[in-house]
């Protein structure tokens, strides 16, 4: 047995084969151990990871929270099926989670693996017995896998497009995003139904559910911050309509001929009211607000769930034939009104939900590419790739729910773009179905000089030209080591100067973000209850050190959060380089915890918005990109404009108006603004909100900022498009549209 494994390991560098072989051979637990032992000797690179895994597995202590080993194992994918994946020490989680008690049950749903370490549940430090238990569980699962029959590897096989009937029940279970989204997600808020913030009877904020690191925890500081910042009061509630009233939904206008032919193709579809409502909205505040009030406007008349590229081809052909309007739907995380059904549309509107096209079709380890169906959501893509020891490194804040096709269609950007690049850097090949036919390149050359890059007609087309069905993406071996960090600056100006210097020296870590003072305070308010007196004592000391000893003004200081990734030595070296630069700008290293909490804020903020809406607080974020010399000015002016406009429009309490610099580039940065206000007493809060956001966008443009860095234009920002790309530019885009889709089948009317 040993020999077999050893030989196989030697001769094959492909994980894909490894998996196959290991699965096929049906090695027992002993065998695995043996294989591990062998590989340790034989294969240097693999060795470290494996050892880590094994050590963790048997309950050895990790060297400590600072060594962010990557306990993820190359084997793991083979042994662990995603649906039964144990709470392994997520590479993302590591030491940061040290102080967090483990939620009682380790989720068996794949969705526990969120982007950003902060989210995943983990248990590395909660006592020896716990570790023991986890190790045992882990072993059990590995064993379980080894006993599984070969061939149940649906997650990775380059499966032929199966028609609905042949899909096993098991495989639909493992989907993060089911066809009926309502089963796990909120219809009028962000994310999973089981996860939400609420103020409990004691008036303390807590986060429900079990999916996230923060789940089940008390956040003592939130109430005070919430009331203080927004002037909100827990007595004044503005609850949402609890259930979707199907009778409020207009009955569908169906194109009978289209439906008939669709039936014959076998592609599943539905005209159930809930299904349709779910696809009619993104996550703009006005959309969510309307849903919370139970107001439902025009929704798609039909939802179809193609299973593969060919299904899409068929649907598009039928749509053309019967003149039906198609609106592609990926993860539904749009914040640009892109999913809104145009009110002037008289044809039957069909929402084309790509969520079931979610397989990785193949992984090419020689070229480090993966060919993936475009409906896959970020968390699944990363998880599945991780199982093979790879990642794309594309981690937009919405990655739990947003889809690959959506990223391509909106020119998305991930937080670790400094290492991996934005979506346009990551795609190698795109296949898109348009009314004219399928567009794709003939080869996968890394760069081409063949006229304007046709990919760029697709990237950012926002569903106006067709449906992206398959994408070949660059992949990278999973980083061996990861480390968070944070730096406190005496003020925002210094912080920006530091980021600029970092960008100048081109030594930006995987992620570097600078939060302003308000956001720093916000992050602070989100600190979960501290378990030991010692920790709170340490916190107190830190605070005294920074504010008293170093003389930082608590109302001016700001924090940069950092994430380093890569080879351990290099990370440490890199870290030093960045901290040295920071020191030149008065920055003080402020520990990993702060860094992590900063990243946590990214994903909880969407949940927090729902909490705010329960108490008359409305909020939204928007972004821009801007040259370096304008960064400070734009931050200051846009924030001031928001406050100013709110005041003008009768908002009683000064709004929360805060920003952060989230990406650095050679020539500029991406800036994110958060804006929230207490709307109690306003007759039409959404209108006020829209006016303020409109004004803020005008301010951004007047200050040299772009219309959007990665959210896209949709319908929300359409009015500024010609100003942004010039009339000739609009003409060029329109002429492409006219050629590709002369009958406006993809009639979501985004962009122009």
């Amino acid at each position, binding site marked *: 047995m040993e020999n077999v494994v050893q030989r196989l390991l030697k001769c094959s560098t492909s994980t894909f084969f490894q998996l196959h072989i290991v699965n096929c051979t049906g090695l027992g637990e002993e065998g695995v151990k043996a294989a591990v032992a062998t590989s340790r000797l034989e294969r240097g690179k693999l060795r470290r990871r494996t050892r880590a895994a094994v050590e963790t597995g048997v309950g050895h202590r990790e060297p400590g929270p600072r060594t962010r080993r990557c306990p993820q194992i190359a084997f793991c994918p083979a042994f662990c099926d995603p649906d039964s994946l144990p709470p392994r020490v997520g590479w993302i989680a590591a030491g940061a989670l040290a102080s967090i008690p483990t939620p009682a049950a380790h989720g068996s749903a794949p969705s526990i693996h969120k982007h950003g370490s902060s989210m995943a549940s983990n248990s590395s430090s909660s006592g020896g017995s716990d570790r023991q238990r986890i190790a045992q569980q882990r072993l059990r699962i590995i064993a379980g896998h080894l006993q599984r029959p070969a061939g149940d590897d649906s997650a990775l096989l380059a499966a032929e497009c199966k028609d609905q009937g042949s899909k096993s029940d098991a495989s639909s279970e493992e989907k993060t995003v089911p066809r009926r989204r309502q089963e796990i997600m909120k219809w009028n808020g962000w994310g999973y139904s089981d996860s939400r913030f609420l103020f409990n009877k004691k008036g303390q904020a807590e986060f429900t559910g079990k999916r996230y690191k923060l789940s089940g925890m008390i956040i003592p500081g939130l109430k005070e911050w919430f009331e203080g910042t927004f002037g909100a009061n827990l007595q004044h509630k503005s609850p949402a309509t609890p259930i979707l009233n199907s009778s409020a939904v207009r009955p569908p206008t169906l194109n009978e001929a289209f439906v008939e032919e669709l039936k014959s193709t076998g592609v599943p579809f539905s005209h159930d009211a809930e299904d349709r409502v779910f696809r009619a909205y993104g996550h703009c505040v006005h959309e969510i607000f309307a849903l919370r009030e139970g107001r439902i406007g025009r929704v798609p008349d039909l939802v179809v769930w193609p299973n593969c590229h060919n299904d899409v081809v068929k649907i598009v052909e039928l749509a053309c034939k019967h003149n039906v309007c198609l609106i592609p739907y990926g993860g539904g995380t749009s914040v640009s009104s892109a999913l809104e059904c145009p009110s002037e549309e008289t044809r039957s509107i069909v929402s084309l939900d790509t969520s079931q096209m979610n397989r990785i079709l193949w992984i090419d380890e020689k070229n480090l590419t993966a060919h993936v169906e475009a409906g896959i959501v970020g968390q699944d893509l990363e998880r599945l790739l991780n199982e093979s020891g790879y990642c794309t490194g594309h981690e937009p804040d919405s990655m739990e729910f947003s889809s690959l096709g959506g990223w391509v269609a909106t020119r998305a950007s991930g937080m670790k773009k400094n290492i991996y690049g934005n979506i346009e850097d990551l795609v190698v090949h795109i296949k898109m179905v348009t009314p004219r036919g399928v567009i794709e390149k003939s080869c996968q050359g890394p760069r081409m000089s063949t006229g304007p890059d046709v990919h760029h007609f697709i990237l950012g087309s926002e569903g106006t030209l067709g449906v992206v069905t398959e994408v070949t993406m660059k992949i990278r071996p999973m980083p061996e080591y990861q480390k968070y960090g944070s730096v406190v600056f005496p003020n925002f100006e210094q912080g920006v100067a530091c980021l600029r210097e970092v960008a100048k020296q081109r030594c930006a870590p995987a992620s570097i973000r600078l939060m302003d003072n308000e956001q720093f305070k916000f992050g602070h308010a989100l600190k979960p209850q501290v378990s030991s007196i010692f920790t709170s004592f340490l916190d107190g000391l830190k605070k005294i050190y920074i504010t008293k000893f170093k003389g930082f003004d608590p109302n001016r200081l700001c924090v940069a959060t950092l994430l380093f990734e890569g080879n351990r030595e290099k990370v440490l070296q890199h870290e030093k380089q960045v901290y040295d630069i920071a020191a030149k700008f008065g920055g003080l290293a402020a520990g990993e915890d702060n860094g992590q909490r900063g990243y946590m804020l990214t994903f909880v903020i969407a949940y927090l918005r729902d909490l705010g809406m329960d108490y008359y607080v409305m909020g939204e974020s928007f972004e821009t990109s801007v040259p370096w010399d304008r960064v400070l000015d*734009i931050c*200051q*002016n846009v924030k001031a*404009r928001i406050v100013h406009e709110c005041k003008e429009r009768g908002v009683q309490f000064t709004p929360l108006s805060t920003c952060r610099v989230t990406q650095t580039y050679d020539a500029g940065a991406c800036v994110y603004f958060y804006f929230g206000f207490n709307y109690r007493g306003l007759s039409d809060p959404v209108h006020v909100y829209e006016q303020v956001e409109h004004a803020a966008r005008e301010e951004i443009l007047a200050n*040299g900022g772009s219309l959007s860095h990665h959210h896209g234009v949709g319908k929300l920002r359409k009015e500024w498009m010609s100003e942004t790309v010039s009339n000739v530019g609009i003409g060029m885009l329109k002429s492409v549209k006219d050629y590709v889709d002369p009958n406006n089948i993809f009639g979501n009317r985004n962009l122009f």
Partner: protein
Amino acid sequence: MTTNRERHVERSPSASYDCSKFDLWQAQLYMDSSCLLASLHGSDTLLFADMQHRDPMLQKRDEFEDMLEERRNSSDLRYALRCYTPVLYKGVTPCTAGALKNMVLQSAQIHFVIGQVSNETGRAVDDIQEEASAILEEMAHSLQLSTVRFFAFTLSKVFKTLFRSICVNEEGIQRLQQAIQEHPVVLLPSHRSYMDFLLMSYILYTYDLALPVIAAGMDFMGMKFVGEMLRMSGAFFIRRSFGGDKLYWAVFSEYVKTMLKNGFAPVEFFLEGTRSRTSKSLTPKLGLLNIAMDPFLKGEVFDVHLVPVSISYERILEEALYARELLGVPKPKESTSGLFKARKVLSEDYGSIHVYFGQPVSVRRLSQGKVDRGQFNLTPRHIPKRPSEEIHSFVNDSAYGLVRAQEENMVLKPWVLLASLLLQNHHGDQASGRARGMALDELTEQAVWLRDLSRQYGAFLHWPDHVPPPEVVSSSLSLHRGLVTITEGRVQLASEQGEPPPVGPEEELLRQAVTVLSCVSYRNQALHVFLRPALLASAVHAASSSGKQEIFNSFSFLRNMFSNEFILCPGATVQDFEEACFLLVKTGALHVSQQEVVVTERGHRTLAFLTSVLDPFLQGYQVRVRSRLRYTEVLSSDLQKNALAALLRLGAVRKIKGYVGFDHPRVPVGSVEYARPRARLKLHHLEFISTNESVWFVAIRVSTDVKQQLRPYSAFGGKHEVFIRIMNEFIQIMNEFIRPTDFMMSDSFAVFFSSETLLLKCSGACWSDGEAERRARL
């Protein structure tokens, strides 16, 4: 363009004179398309809609408090040494003068310009850097609290002696305080006296507000010690002209912007650029306003607030000085000894001062929809760029709006009305040759009438209503007894009794002219109140019919003609016409229908008064030479300058830039004061042909060089003989180049003479016909 056009049409009182007609008319008149453009380009005063009510009577103004009262009751020393803790913009820590200089020198703009200059001239960068640093050294303020305290002490003493009260609107102060905390602030006081900026700082110190840094003319630096004192109290000094000096401009603008952007202190400057000698607001200068708005337009600050401040003096310290200056006696050079000599003013009563801090004007709001700030997106902001057409016209409109805001809050004293009445009467007397003067009760009656009229026109009149009118009149007259004499119950304009009798007719005229011009400067204070109705009244007067169209045409001609003379916002003709109609209709003087404008029975008196308000100006502009001057005030160089500028603008006069460089051996006529023996004269040769072609005028402007050289004479304090001598010398010089048959003028003095009549003969300041001819022959 289109929107402007639409707006014009929209606001037209009737469809009969839409703007296209109006343009056509203009085009025909001047055959000058640029005029047409200018009229369309401009803006409207809608900008300041929040300040200008349709009915000026409804305008709400704050109450005044006398700040000297407290000074009279408590210790000045304690006051000067008290704890001074002003609130600052966003709580910034004030920056030391040295740090400020460093910030300026290290700015991207200065670096860029230094590089540019170095490329152009081939000079070493270090060298230019040095120069920049020297410029800054010359310019920068060095505000010191101790100096401020010194001034606080001395000024308290001085003010208490000179003035009865200094009244400030405290609500305005509160608004200012609020504004200072939230935004960078620019203070824009009106400029009537040297006292203005000392007074401003004094007030801000008293109310515990951040002390402003003040843009002052380089002239003050000529005053030893005092210049430095001013510098230490917050003044920074700029050269009067630095035309093409890129580096100077860069350092200067960056200096102002740095202070503004960082909000270290409010920046204060005078929109009018210089003291108005006539008490009439001067057309605004745009340079500094441009700089002040730049940080906002470029997005470097969220907003800038402009605070117009109206300072009204019951009696201006420089009263007689200005009148003489207007008549051509050069302005005395600023000097410490001059200041010392001027201490005699301390013994006189100058009444009270009213300082009104207006509503802060947000540049952000002002520019909304007018300026696309995105225009700076495509070039680095530190590269100096000429302001775009859009920005230029925006700044220009804003400047006019701000000056109007200053005007509107100027406090008018009863004397201003009396001066207007007395002047009109004086002119009438002169014309008819009747017995001079005006009966006291008649004056009182007319004054009461005018009081009511001006109130209806929105004047900010401080007429003590609880005092019977005769008392108000007599107390006003007594304050200005230098200008009026009362004999046998009749009031007339005359200089003070008891002075030595005039030496000759020339001096008699000069003395008379000084009195008249002093009076004129008081009347001018009220001009803005009557201006628009007066233009309409004159238009009605001049028009041959009562057709609305014709009256509008003639209104618009007059308005256009006088736009150098008065503050008339460019492009707001229709709006002004409507305003004038509204006011005159409201007071029942006119009846305006769709087609006609008719004077009502009771309106004649109003219209007669209004017409005669403008009459002196009309005469000054009429290119006709009369044998007898009806209005002595035509002698005012200010009027002549404006007239010439207007004629130039309207294309009636052509400007031939003839540079005549020469070395003239005879310039230093018997005078040791000339710094350079070889003067270099630059002649701006101006000629124009009057409509009746019988008279030719040639105007010569003397370049700055010459003025500088003639200036030493001013050390004599503008004595009459010296004045005559300077003029004679000047004419001698001029004689070499032109036929002395003409009309000559300069910034500081004007000489009239023509082939037919010598105006100067009237003023007695020049030679006889015979001599002129003799010289001409030479």
